[in-house]
């Protein structure tokens, strides 16, 4: 707090001071949310406006999709094994019957784990990448150079990442679902001796599960690049500013994924599962 601000705060009444303290906490949060919404709305506006840099969309798809594939597969593969191992032990102790485990597990993967855990992985891997790339372009004046040449940075930098992320988050969620189910099936078969044909049970799956899966993948695919791009575009200073932007991108994107998961699960419950 500067000397000027300290003197200003000292002159306030206790009630005014409490309100001012609230402002210190909430004003930066509201400002950031407003900026994320601004970047998001502009990105959607430019996503429907020519020209779209399709070559860049393909490059970003490779970066988001192909380069994240191994990471997502390994994490979801191990998570699938751990989930079945732990839940199998509990189920065996309480119920003793593991016939329905595959059906329940598949439903859980569709509704929750496949899109959400994939998105959390992408928030760290892709979110940092986008924020660092755009952030370093800001601090090296490349974004100013774009503006000086009448190229809108959001159209030029954010839109290709947004389009690539929408497609690749969905694709990666599908891959993650298959991998997690496959590794889960392997553990169920080897540890609990559940037959593969018994484990592969789609009887509990409903259309609502597919819709919620797709909605979540779409929502995360939109949210992660927009939050990361906003963090990058707001970077200032030198390498320290880029570091702050990447940290901000991971924290905000992970928070957004978690909150969206809660909201969309609630929506799913109200419309499909209640």
């Amino acid at each position, binding site marked *: 707090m500067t000397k000027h601000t300290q003197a200003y705060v000292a002159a306030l009444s206790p009630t005014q001071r409490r309100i001012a303290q609230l402002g210190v906490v909430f004003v930066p949060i509201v400002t950031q949310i407003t900026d994320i919404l601004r970047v998001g709305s502009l990105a959607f506006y430019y996503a429907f406006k020519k020209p779209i840099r399709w070559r860049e969309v393909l490059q970003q798809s490779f970066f988001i999709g192909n380069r994240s594939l191994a990471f997502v597969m390994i994490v979801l593969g191990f998570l699938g094994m751990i989930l079945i191992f732990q839940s199998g032990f509990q189920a065996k102790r309480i119920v003793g019957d593991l016939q329905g485990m595959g059906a329940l597990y598949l439903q859980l993967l569709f509704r929750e784990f496949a899109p959400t855990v994939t998105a959390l992985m992408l928030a760290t891997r892709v979110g940092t990448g986008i924020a660092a790339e755009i952030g370093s372009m800001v601090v090296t004046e*490349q974004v*100013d150079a774009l503006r*000086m040449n*009448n190229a809108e940075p959001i159209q030029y930098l954010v839109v290709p990442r947004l389009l690539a992320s929408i497609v690749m988050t969905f694709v990666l969620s599908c891959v993650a679902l298959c991998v997690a189910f496959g590794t889960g099936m392997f553990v169920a078969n080897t540890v609990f001796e559940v037959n593969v044909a018994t484990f592969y049970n789609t009887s509990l799956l409903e259309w609502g599960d597919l819709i919620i899966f797709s909605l979540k993948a779409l929502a995360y695919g939109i949210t992660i690049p927009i939050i990361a791009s906003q963090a990058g575009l707001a970077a200032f200073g030198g390498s320290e500013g880029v570091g702050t932007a990447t940290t901000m991108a991971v924290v905000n994107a992970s928070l957004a994924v978690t909150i969206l998961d809660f909201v969309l699960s609630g929506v799913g419950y109200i419309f499909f599962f209640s």
Partner: protein
Amino acid sequence: MIRIAEVYKYRGHECVINGVNLVIPQGTQVGLIGPGGAGKSLLMKICAGLVRPDSGSVLIDGTEVVGIGDVEMTSVRSKIGMLFQNYALFDFMTVEENIGFPLRQLGGRTEEEIRDEVNRLLLAVDLPNTQKLFPNELSGGMKKRVTFARAVIANPPILFYDDPTAGLDPVTSGKIFALLEERRARGGTTSIVVSHDILGMRDICDSFVLMDHGRIVFSGTREQIEASTRPFVGQFWRGEADD
């Protein structure tokens, strides 16, 4: 012509541009000099519409830059070429794509015409056969020359050079200043050069503006600045340290 009137810019409670008034006549090259942190680059960015001042007015060829919308700013920026202090070359583009970028953005030319113009400029800045290189494959001096080529390719009537020789050796600095001088000699371009290199700037600018702590402390020709009896002006011009 560029007309700056009563421009103020605050960072927190600190006034970083403090009531600047300046007129740069059409076709002149002005050297904007001053110690680090004086507000030179910031003032240039305000003129280019990249930073919005807290108050004041900036007229570029009669068009107000402060507070105008994106559409109006597009027509103003198409008149301006800018050489950035940190090169600002797009690292995902080749040299050819970087230099041709302003022409592609303006439209109205074929790819072949753009390529020819890029090749002509690359020869002019003494960088033949670098078309397919990426910025990370170039030295500092080469990057500056590519940035210069990108700034001038569309023949803008206004040019802003932000520290064109920062971090360069004296020989390369000399080459850059020669390019600036060549551009000035052609006439018709209004330009601002921000630099700490007083020696290099002496012969290529029509007049000089000295800034300190966000204010203009002196404005005049080379003869006037050399004849100034004000200690700060004399010390800065001659590069003398405080006693």
